[in-house]
C-alpha cells in the first residue's frame, strides 16, 4: 500500500450534489470523517451529467488517484468504462454495480432498513394508515417503499400504505412545498406516520409532520435531530461508512474489488434510535424492532428486494 501521506483519494458526487440531504451528503460526511481521523485529504467533484461523470472520472484517473469513490447509480456506466481504461486506478461505486477487477461496487439492502422503519411505523400508528413519499418513481425508491410495506404488514396484515411520488424530473428532489403538500394530503386521509425518501423534498414532509403533530421517518442520514418529538426514527443508509471504510481499507492495504451488498448485518442500513426519538420509541416498539432486526441478521426473516425482479409482496 502507498504511504498514507501520498495516498490520493477522490469523491465524485452525482447531479444531486454534496448537500443533497441524501447519499451524496452522506458520502461527503464519510470522506470528511476519514480526513479528520487520518489527516488525508481528498478531492471532490460534482458531475452534473453522465457525460461529465465520464469526463471527471477520466480526469481524476489521469491524475493517478489511488481510489475514486463514485456516488450514485448514475455513474455506473462511466465507472465501468473508465475503470477499464485505467486498470491501475481503483474505484468504489456506491449504489450501483459496475464490472471490473479494479471496482468495488457497494450496494445497500435498503429493503431491510425500510422493513425496520415499516415495523416501527406500524407499531406507532393509531390509524393503521401509513404514508410513503418518494422522490421519483424509480427502482431504488420503490425498494424503500416495498421494504417499508413488508415491514408494516408483518405487524398487521390490514395496514394501509398510501404512497406518493413527488414528480418525474430532477426537480422532484428539490420541491419541499410538494413534499409537504403530499404529506398534508396523506394526513388528511388519516395517515399518521409518514416515511419520506425524497431528498430535499422530504424536508417539507418532515416539517409538515411536525406542524401537524404526526410522525415522520427520515432517510439516509439520521434525521431525528431535525424535529425531535415528531421524528419517529430514521432509516439510515450508511454511505458514509462505505466511503470511510473504503478509504481506510485503501490506507491499510486491505482494499478489495468485488461486489458488496450491505444490509443490516453488514452495518449498511439500520434504524436510528437516539435521544431525539427516545420518547417516541416505547419499550414495546423497541423490543419488536430489535427482534425483527435480529431475525433479519440471522436470516430468519427474508425481506424481498424488488430489484431482483420479484414483485412486491406487500
Amino acid at each position, binding site marked *: 500500500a502507498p504511504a498514507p501521506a501520498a495516498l490520493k483519494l477522490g469523491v465524485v458526487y452525482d447531479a444531486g450534489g454534496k448537500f443533497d440531504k441524501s447519499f451524496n451528503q452522506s458520502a461527503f460526511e464519510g470522506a470528511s470523517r476519514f480526513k479528520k481521523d487520518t489527516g488525508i485529504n481528498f478531492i471532490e467533484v460534482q458531475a452534473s*451529467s453522465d*457525460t*461529465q461523470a465520464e*469526463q471527471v472520472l477520466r480526469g481524476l484517473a489521469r491524475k493517478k488517484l489511488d481510489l475514486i469513490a463514485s456516488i450514485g*447509480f*448514475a455513474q455506473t*456506466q462511466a465507472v465501468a468504462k473508465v475503470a477499464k481504461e485505467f486498470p491501475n486506478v481503483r474505484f468504489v461505486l456506491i449504489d*450501483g454495480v459496475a464490472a471490473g477487477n479494479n471496482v468495488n461496487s457497494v450496494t445497500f439492502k435498503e429493503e431491510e432498513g425500510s422493513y425496520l422503519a415499516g415495523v416501527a411505523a406500524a407499531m406507532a400508528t393509531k390509524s393503521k394508515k401509513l404514508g410513503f413519499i418518494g422522490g*421519483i418513481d424509480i*427502482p431504488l425508491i420503490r425498494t424503500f417503499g416495498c421494504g417499508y410495506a413488508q415491514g408494516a404488514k408483518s405487524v398487521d396484515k390490514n395496514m394501509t400504505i398510501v404512497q406518493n411520488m413527488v414528480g418525474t424530473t430532477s426537480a422532484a428532489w428539490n420541491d419541499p412545498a410538494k413534499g409537504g403538500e403530499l404529506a398534508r394530503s396523506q394526513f388528511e386521509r388519516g395517515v399518521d406516520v409518514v416515511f419520506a425518501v425524497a431528498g430535499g423534498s422530504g424536508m417539507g414532509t418532515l416539517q409538515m409532520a411536525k406542524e401537524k403533530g404526526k410522525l415522520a421517518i427520515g432517510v439516509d442520514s439520521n434525521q431525528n435531530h431535525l424535529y425531535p418529538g415528531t421524528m419517529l426514527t430514521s432509516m439510515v443508509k450508511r454511505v458514509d461508512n462505505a466511503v470511510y471504510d473504503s478509504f481506510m481499507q485503501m490506507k491499510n492495504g486491505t482494499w478489495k474489488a468485488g461486489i458488496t451488498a450491505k444490509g443490516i448485518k453488514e452495518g449498511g442500513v439500520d434504524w436510528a434510535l437516539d435521544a431525539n426519538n427516545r420518547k417516541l420509541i416505547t419499550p414495546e416498539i423497541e423490543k419488536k424492532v430489535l427482534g425483527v432486526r435480529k431475525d433479519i441478521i440471522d436470516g430468519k426473516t427474508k425481506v424481498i428486494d424488488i430489484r431482483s425482479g420479484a414483485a412486491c409482496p406487500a
Partner: protein
Amino acid sequence: MNNDLPRWATAVALPLLNLLSALLVAALVIHLLGEDPVESMQILINSAIVNPEGLSYTLFYASTFIFTGLAVSIAMQAGLFNIGAEGQMYVGGLGLTWAMLAFDASLPWYLLIPAGMLGAALFGALWAFIPGYLQAKRGSHIVVTTIMFNFIAASLMNFVIVKYLIPPGEQNTASRVFSAAAEMPRLSDWLPVLGDTPLNISFFIAIVALAIYGLMVWRSSWGYKLRATGLNKHAAHYAGVKISKMIIVTMLISGALAGLGSVNSIMGSTHYLSLNFVGGAGFVGIAIALMGRQHPIGIFLSAVLFGALIQGGFDLSLEKPNIPTETFIFIQGLIILFCGAMEYLYAPVLMKLIKGKQA
C-alpha cells in the same frame, strides 16, 4: 438612433461591449466569492477554448445546443414560440433508443446511425406535432401546450424508462448500453490531440443543419412563405400560404431538430438513454435562438459560447472550490441579458464618440 451607427459598430463593437459588461459583472461576483477574477477568467478560457481537449468538450456541448437552438429558431420564424424543445429532445431520445434496441445487434454502423437519427427526428417531430396541430386547427396557444408537453414528456419518459427500459437487476435508471456499432465516430479517432472526448461527427451534422436552415429560411420559397407567416399572417394568406399546414410542418421540423439533439448526447457520448439526459438543453436552445437572433451564425456562436461556459465553468469549479458551477449559470443569464436584451445599451455612447471624432 441605431441605423446611424456604422456597420462595424453594430456588428462588432456593440456585442463586444455587451459581452464585456456581462463579464465585468461576473468578475465582480467572482471577486466577492473571494477568488481572483483575472486568474479565473484565464482558467476558464484556457480550459474551454485553448486546451484542445477542453475545446472539444465545448464543441461537443455546442453540437447539442445547435440542434435545440435551431429547433426554437425555425419555429420562431413562423411566429411560434416553441418552449417544448426540452420535451421534444427527450422523446426524440426515446425514438433513437428504440431504433438502437431493435437494430444495434444486426445493422452495421453506417445504417445504425441514420436509423438512430431517423428515430430521434421522428419521435421529436411527433411530440411537436400535437401542439402544432392544436395551434393550427384549434388555436390553442402554443406556448401553453408546449410547456404542458414538457411536463407530459417527463412523466411519460419516467414511466417508459422505469417500466420497460431498465435491464432487470440494474439500479441505474437507464436503458442498456448500445453495441459499439451504435457509437457516432469520434473526431479524436482522427485527431488524437483532442483526447478521449465525446466530440463526434454530430458536430458536422449540426453545421450542415445550420447551413441547410440558412438556405431554407432565407433562400428558398418555402422559407419566404415561412417568414411571411411569422411576420404577417394576413399577408401570408393573401400570398397563398396554407397557414395551418405551415404551422404544422414548421412544428414537425422544429420537433425533429430538437429530437436530433439527442443523437449527440446519446449516440455520441453515453450510448444509453437515461432519465433526464436532456438536462435543460432544450431551454438553453431558447436562449440560443433568442441571442443568436435566429441567424445561423448567431446560433453557432451562442451555442459555442454556452458550451464553453459549461466546460470552462466546470473545470474552473474544480480548481476553485469557492466558485460553484452554478456561478456559470448566473453568468449565462448575464450574457443573455446584456447581449440579447440590451443590445443597444452602448449605442448612444458609441454614437457620441464617433460624432465627436468627426466634428
